[in-house]
């Protein structure tokens, strides 16, 4: 068996290979190179937005020059890109046609009938992703039981294809009603169109994600079709750039589920890579949480424009099926990353009634904070950090950007004057406490949705501002503590390098009684299993082992909302339907606080995830550098309405087992960690900074 062969090959010599994780961001493209013998190399290359693959090329060249052994090594490159996402958000995607069942032409115009705001008289709806003149109806209809009610004839198909041709589009999406039950009609239509228009890229909704709800499924099919040509071009260019850098590497792409895919899969279903950026960082945090034995963790990715969190339970990331791409819903399961408000660029202001506000406006990277001196005149959260003494004006981003503290003080003094506060530092602290309260309340709402308890959560910050703000948030929200990972600012690239091969599969059932399904339940999973295994084998990626994870969307009869429940593999093996029911009762009780053992259970969808474990690497052990000059450095930090003297250390100075009390500042080239009074820091052997309350 082909996959077994690769298993052996990988297991035989897992250390003799190199892995490179690459994350393309707006400002920097980050690289993490994992070499054998626990050696990690980090590199930042300025991004090249006009041709993102150029920064990849330059960064790889830099790494190859520094580590010539890479030329000979068997290397994997795992690449994360937001190209497809940005194209959709900026409406720079290919024109496509959409084919739908007769009577459903307005699936995108109506959507789910909601508008972004019901309070706003001037509200507008999202731009339909395919305008109505490019949506074509066809007499193909399946009913809810999967029975074909009508089929288009040859003449109708000829006419349809003539109309598609007249539209001059390069790709077409197809969504027929109830194709989630039975995809026969969609498959026939793909064949019929391909025969008449062989050059067209065709996406059928059931082939990408066969789940009930035609609007959401149509969005998935359309986005996939729209980014298809773009990703084809990009991946072709990327492959050339990698070759040009002088290494022979297998190229893989990170996915929205925190895993990765072969280039081949990413080409066929580019939509699966859409939200890969934030998912990679969260994946790295989950692996670290597991290694550190942290049961309940929250990732906290705070950059310039927003702060994002994801929930980790026992080392496993929570997924969501209600994420969004801009204003559009994405029904496929992805790592549940949610925004909780302010970023470093969020603007601090005072409204006409004298009340302080933080955000929602952001100065972004340009003009950025006042202190950047790039033309920003309105103070931001980053300016607050600076005025409070949390960050060093000369050490920001390793000294790449010199911050102008005096300018930030002037801007915040204006805020202070309007609030009747004595100083710029008072205004800065007020703004930070407002921003923190916003984050904490958003955090509570999110945890409440899933029934999690805040007090047991450990915050795992990354991104430029994450470590600076994490302790503030942990204190406000009453969290258990903070664990700052090593390489916090290049964490998404690390996540890419650590990603396993992963893909999710779904079989939708409509509304079936669990008990009434009989063997169909197990047959469905068996079908998904063979589909998944065939896919994994076809990926051509060397793996150590493969895992199958089962889940089902269920509800009590009469409920309108489903719950996605993990089904233990043992239930699948033993074909034990009562264990499936138990899993649902338990999950329902955990999330909703009650269970109804006597109520009938409906099952709406069965899910399967396949995970191919790739050879992993361990974080290098830290060796504490001796303190520069040997003397104690301190800095004044404004906290609790007064200036306090905070000790300042370099992260490199912290060896395993170091204990230090707050107020404390830990500096490193790409971020600053702030430890509050009343909290203390313990550094461990792989460089994780654990922050907890002093006893």
């Amino acid at each position: 068996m082909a996959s077994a062969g690769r298993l052996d090959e990988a297991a035989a010599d897992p250390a003799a290979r190199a892995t490179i994780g690459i994350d393309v961001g707006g400002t920097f493209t980050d690289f993490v190179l994992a070499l054998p013998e626990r050696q990690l190399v980090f590199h930042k290359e300025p991004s090249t937005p006009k041709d993102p693959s150029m920064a990849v090329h330059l960064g790889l060249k830099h790494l190859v020059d520094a580590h010539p052994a890479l030329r000979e090594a068997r290397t994997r490159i795992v690449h994360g890109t937001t190209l497809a996402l940005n194209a959709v958000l900026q409406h720079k995607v290919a024109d496509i046609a959409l084919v739908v069942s007769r009577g459903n032409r307005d699936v995108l115009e109506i959507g789910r009938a909601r508008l972004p705001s019901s309070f706003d008289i001037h509200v507008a709806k999202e731009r339909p992703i395919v305008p109505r003149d490019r949506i074509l109806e066809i007499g193909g209809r399946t009913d809810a039981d999967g029975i074909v009610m009508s089929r288009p004839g040859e003449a109708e198909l000829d006419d349809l294809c003539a109309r598609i041709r007249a539209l001059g589009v390069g790709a077409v999406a197809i969504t027929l009603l109830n194709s989630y039950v039975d995809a026969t009609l969609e498959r026939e239509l793909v064949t019929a169109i391909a025969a008449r228009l062989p050059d067209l890229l065709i996406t059928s909704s059931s082939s990408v994600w066969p789940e009930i709800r035609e609007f959401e499924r149509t969005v998935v099919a359309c986005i996939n079709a729209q980014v298809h040509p773009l990703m084809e071009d990009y991946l072709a260019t990327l492959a050339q750039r990698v070759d040009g850098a002088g290494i022979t590497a297998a190229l893989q792409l990170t996915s929205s589920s925190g895993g990765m895919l072969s280039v081949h899969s990413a080409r066929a279903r580019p939509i699966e890579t859409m939200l890969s950026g934030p998912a990679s960082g969260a994946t790295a945090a989950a692996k670290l949480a597991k290694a550190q034995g942290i049961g309940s963790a929250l990732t906290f990715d705070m950059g310039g424009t927003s702060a994002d969190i994801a929930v980790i339970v026992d080392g496993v990331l929570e997924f969501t099926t209600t994420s969004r791409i801009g204003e559009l819903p994405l029904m496929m399961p992805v790592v549940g990353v949610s925004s909780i408000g302010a970023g470093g660029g969020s603007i601090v202001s005072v409204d006409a009634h004298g009340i302080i506000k933080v955000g929602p406006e952001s100065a972004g990277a340009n003009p950025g904070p006042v202190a950047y001196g790039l033309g920003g005149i309105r103070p931001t959260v980053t300016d607050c950090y600076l005025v409070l003494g949390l960050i060093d004006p000369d050490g920001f981003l390793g000294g790449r950007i010199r911050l102008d503290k005096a300018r930030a003080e002037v801007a915040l003094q204006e805020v202070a004057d309007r609030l009747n506060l004595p100083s710029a530092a008072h205004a800065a602290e007020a703004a930070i406490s407002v921003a923190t309260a916003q984050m904490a309340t958003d955090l509570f709402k999110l945890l409440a949705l899933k029934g999690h308890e805040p007090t047991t959560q450990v915050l795992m910050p990354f991104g430029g501002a994450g470590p600076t703000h994490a302790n503030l948030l942990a204190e406000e929200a009453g969290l258990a503590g903070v664990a700052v990972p090593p390489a916090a600012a290049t964490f998404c690239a690390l996540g890419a390098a650590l990603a396993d091969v992963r893909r999710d599969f779904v079989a939708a059932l409509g509304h079936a009684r669990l008990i009434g399904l009989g063997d169909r339940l197990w047959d469905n999973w068996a079908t998904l299993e063979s589909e998944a295994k065939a896919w994994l084998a076809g990926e051509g990626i060397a793996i150590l082992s493969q895992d199958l994870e089962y889940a089902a969307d269920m509800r009590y009869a009469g409920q309108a909302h489903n719950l996605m429940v993990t089904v233990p593999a043992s239930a699948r093996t033993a074909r034990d339907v009562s264990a499936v029911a138990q899993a649902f009762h338990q999950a329902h009780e955990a999330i909703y606080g009650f269970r109804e053992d006597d109520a009938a259970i409906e099952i709406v969808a069965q899910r399967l995830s396949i995970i191919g474990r790739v050879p992993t690497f361990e974080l290098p052990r830290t060796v504490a550098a001796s303190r520069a000059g040997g003397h104690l450095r301190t800095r004044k930090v404004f906290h609790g309405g007064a200036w306090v003297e905070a000790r300042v250390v370099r992260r490199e100075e912290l060896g395993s087992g170091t204990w230090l009390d707050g107020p404390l500042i830990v500096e490193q080239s790409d971020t600053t960690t702030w430890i509050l009074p009343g909290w203390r820091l313990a550094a461990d052997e792989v460089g994780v900074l654990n922050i907890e309350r002093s006893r």
Partner: protein
Amino acid sequence: MRLDPVLLEILATKLTAAAEEMGNALQRSGRTMYVKETQDFGTGLVNHAGRLFAYPRGVGVIGMVDNDYSTVLEVIGELSPGDVVLTNHPFASGGLATHLPDLHLVKPYFAKDRIVGYGWCFVHSADVGGRVPSSISPSSHEIYQEGLMIPPVKIVCRGEPNRDMLAVMGANSRTSEENAGDLKAMLAALAVGERRVARIIEQHGVEAFEAAAVDVPAYSAAKARAAFRTIPDGTYEFWDYLDDDLVSPVPVRIHARMKVRDGLLDIDFSQTDPQVAAAFNLPSCGKRHTWLSLRLLQYVYTRDRAVPLNSGIFEPVTMTLPEGSLLNPVFPAAVGVRHATGNRVMDVLNGVLAAAVPDFMRAPGCGVTIPVVLAGPQTSDGDRQVMVVQLLSGGTGAMLGADGIDGRDPGTSGMSNNPIESIESSAPVMVHTYGVRQDSGGAGRWRGGVGLELTFSPKVSGCQVLARGMERHRFVPWGMAGGFCAKGSRTIKNLGRPDEQELGKIDVVDLEVGETITFLTPGGGGYGDPAERDPEAVLLDLKRGFISAQSARDDYKVVIEEGKVDHAATQALRATHVGRTAEAGTVFDLGRERLTWESLFSNDFMSRINSALSRLPPAARRSARRKIFAPVLPYLSPTGAIDAAGLVQARPAVERELAAFE
């Protein structure tokens, strides 16, 4: 204000979040479609004055920010920790509940041994008994027909559920199990609010919490006042209609006169018609009411999107609501379909505001929110499946600089629709068409959004279709600033077949296998002269099917040949055109039926009639009104049309009848 500007912002954030967390908890664990899919529920925090000081922004209904809990708190008397008050009784709750399916819960939150505030939530339950499945029918004429009435009672007493009361409720509902599930979810939501309030008090102290319950609304009040100051001082008047009162084809008029002075709004509804013998009455109990003030909330929000949502927004607003009128009916008026009236009040206030600030307001939207309900065949044990097939609205009105929204309308709430696939997998129906309705938006320089079409048929015999809130069959959404009015509603059985039948408004319709029923909803009104619309935009609308070729030529005066605009011919056609603004000298295009109706029943004449009626005791008004309008009945078609010549003939008889009461 007692709070400083930093703590105020922090507490406003935390309180709103607490209300939202309650909403999340309720939505998560609720049982029925009303909770899960259409979000017909609400949560919030109530202060000592019995007013909301925290309300969610993104979960639940939008329209209950101006709720008044003071009557409920007064009636129930002393409360202990662990008590929860339940009511659905519009008249006994002082207008908190507005129809019987809305179950409202209020729970006192204690700090030490003192009440510091109250948690509130409500759910529209699937059925509370009464004469029809789902409890709501336009043809109910007494609230006794609309289900079980529950005055404020303790459904939980010191943490112990009131099992007797629960048994009574269970016995009076067709969906008792689902209701019990929703009730559990509501109690869970109240507990979430209680925990969150306790944490806020732990962090900031009880004084700060209680100060916030007053100061946050005061802050919103200041913001609202500033927003209302954008309305020039003056008096503005507008009126609009419900098509009929169901028991007769006589229209029901809602009239408002708004006086504005320095950001203070006084709205007088005195010239609104008397209460009706159908379920359209809106029980405000004579106080400024959340269903009457919603458009004002939207006005404030649109001017200032950062305003915290709470009762303070309405502080600058006073209202006059005469007893016995449609907007302040007396017991035992039926109220089930009060949302149809609420929708029309929104349009009336929209008109009042449009008269004052025409550059800011939209033309009215479809003005309907129609839950189309299917009652399945009766099973052997007497049950029948009752479910909402689809929640229909229509298009949104156009405004200066922007077209209306096609096929969606913010309406009175932000509810989701049901996917066709969900409908077909859970109800015995086949949906043939669910799409937009060509030419239904009012033509204009900015086009009104188009309405919707829904056509479906049952797959088993013995099904009935019910629809509530059917409106705008006769009087259509009007156009503004030279824009045209929209197309009105229609309901049709077996559309496109030889036995096609125009149903007009329906209550309950039997539908057999093989038959179809079609609902067509209105678009929104147009804004500005359509002959000034960019011809290329007209061409695009034609290509996309939002308008027909005929409308492009007749309404927009655009000549299109072989898929392209003929600019020379268009210019020639437009040169001879006189816009409606110039023609009629009016801001509003009110539609043909309305102009016809008002050729007899003008504003002055209606004032005379209502003045005469208001001198009668409320109980006598209905029959008096019936007499006055009796002469015109033959000229009002049940599907909407009004016979103009007939009205002229009827005039002397109407005058005679009126004189008898003057």
